């Protein structure tokens, strides 16, 4: 595996750890599945707007701790993009990967 795929795998682990923490702190109907296709935004998602914002803030904090880098995942314009980074875990993962230097 090259560095890029190692990093991708590591970030996915971080996202899953955030999902674990999210599931600990939320009632049954708001819990998330640990899967690449888990929807984060929209009608199919278990996250409402507060849940999504809270989740994304945790993503930013976790990336900062693990990569010593400030990245901006929350961007109101991205909410409007079809097939944007908040679509599911996989699109978020790709978006983060692009942001990491």
């Amino acid at each position: 595996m090259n560095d890029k795929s190692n990093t991708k795998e590591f970030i996915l682990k971080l996202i899953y750890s955030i999902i674990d923490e999210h599931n600990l702190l939320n009632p049954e109907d708001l819990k998330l599945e640990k899967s690449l296709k888990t929807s984060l935004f929209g009608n199919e998602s278990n996250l409402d707007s507060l849940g999504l914002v809270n989740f994304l803030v945790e993503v930013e904090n976790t990336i900062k701790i693990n990569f010593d880098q400030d990245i901006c995942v929350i961007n109101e314009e991205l909410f409007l993009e079809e097939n944007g980074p908040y679509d599911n875990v996989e699109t978020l993962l790709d978006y983060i990967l692009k942001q990491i230097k």
Partner: protein
Amino acid sequence: MNLNLNLISDFNLDLLKRVIESKDISEINSVNTSSYGQLYQSIFSFEEDLNSINFIWSLPESHIKTFQSALNFEEINKTQLKKEVEEYANLLVNLSKKCKFILLPLWQRLPHYKTYGIIDLEIEFGRSKLINEMNLLLSNRFKNVNNVYLIDSSEWQLNNLEYMNPKIWYLAKSPFSNSIYKKVSETIISSIKTLNGNSKKLLIVDLDNTLWGGLIGELSYKGINIGGHNHIGEAFLDFQKSLLSLHNRGILLAIASKNDEEIALQAFKKNSEMILREEHFVAKKINWNDKANNIIEIAKDINIGLDSVVFIDDNPVEREHIKITLPEVYVPDWSLDPSMYAIKLNSLRCFDQVSFTKDDKNRNKTYLENKLRESSKEMIINKDNWLKELNTTVQIGELTNDNLQRITQLFNKTNQFNLTTRRLSGDEIKKYYSLVENKLITIDVEDKFGQLGLVGIIGLSRPSDITLNVVDLILSCRAMGRGIEETMLYLIGKNVKDACAKRFLINYKKSAKNNPVLHFLKSTKLENEKDSKFHSNNINDFLKPDSVKIIYKK
């Protein structure tokens, strides 16, 4: 009792609501939040719900206008600040009359407050100083309001910048991070459990590597690691000090250990570094039997339910065994590192109390005296003789401001001998028993071994000329089985006669734990209707036991 929890705030508490809901707490029926910026509106529009707990968490700058001006370094008038805080406090006093309890976290200096730095606590208008003064005003205002509990929020570390979350604040008006909401939810849940009478009363500990370092069976009392000049020994000593402070607070201590009793007890008798002594433990099961059986026996010996028991053992296998075998017993996860023992013990919230009375302070002594009573019972064998030998005196009194706190505690902590298990706040008790048709009788007990204190309550109501209803019948478990129950029936009969009524009626309401009341009622001459209604045919049936002397408080 299932309660409705209202989270009332001037900021968004939906994240906290979710954390609480995720814990699925049986005592909580529903969790509701106020809308952002609607603190006063939510308080004003609150409709009476005596099954509700209101958790009121505010940022002072959002509604104490003068404090907001102080934050902007504007000149302020302290009299005006005091007036605004008092107005807010008065609002909460009014709210307290419409709900069961209010939990009110004290204000903290938050990281985003610009301060005067090193002199902030000294100068007249320092932020930290102002907050301390405002909290003191709240504390004084609620001193005599029985159902408002001030929460020490300093343990949440709100002043730590890491726990603020500006991004969520700007996006969703929720100022704190998830870790704060986790801590706050733990405080709320433990407070509700405490208020609901679910505090733990008995702590059972293991010995080797729990109370001291090493195995006493191999090292002898001289070789165990306790105190001295090494860090592990000091840690065990600190743990013992923490246990002693729990004992002084009225939490009962007991031992369940796999050891030879004679060898193990030498540590208490002969090792001068030991802080804890044999007399600090109300029960000891030091043998090679199964620990679960030992715990059951200890609980039985001191007449306490297993759900009031906490068990601490360094051995994860033993902990797991008790967790599986006795799920009612609370077994906290324990650290491998003895230097964490004292901190871990002191952080447990399960021993929290709603009040602290003289009876709490004397509880350990009373249980030891009870053991003496029981051992004398074994010697005398005949129960009637034993009861006579006890020289029991029952002192009859009424509800006063001085005993209200103890009476409230009996209402909210007694599970086994409790006719209806209705949980009432001090104000509710006062209100109900101030009505002319209702009467509360208190029972203080003393015998040759010592004072048991105020241990019983009879609550009567008179719905008609001929009948007295027994609405409350409560007896602390430490006073059960010594003729007090029969004395209570006699007193009820006497009140019927004194009131020129004809009969009394007892409505028993079953709970998960109050079978002892039913068992007692069924053993008497009362007429029984479906194990729920009991009434007297002839009030002369209920005689005062010969073994009990009754005196009336003047």
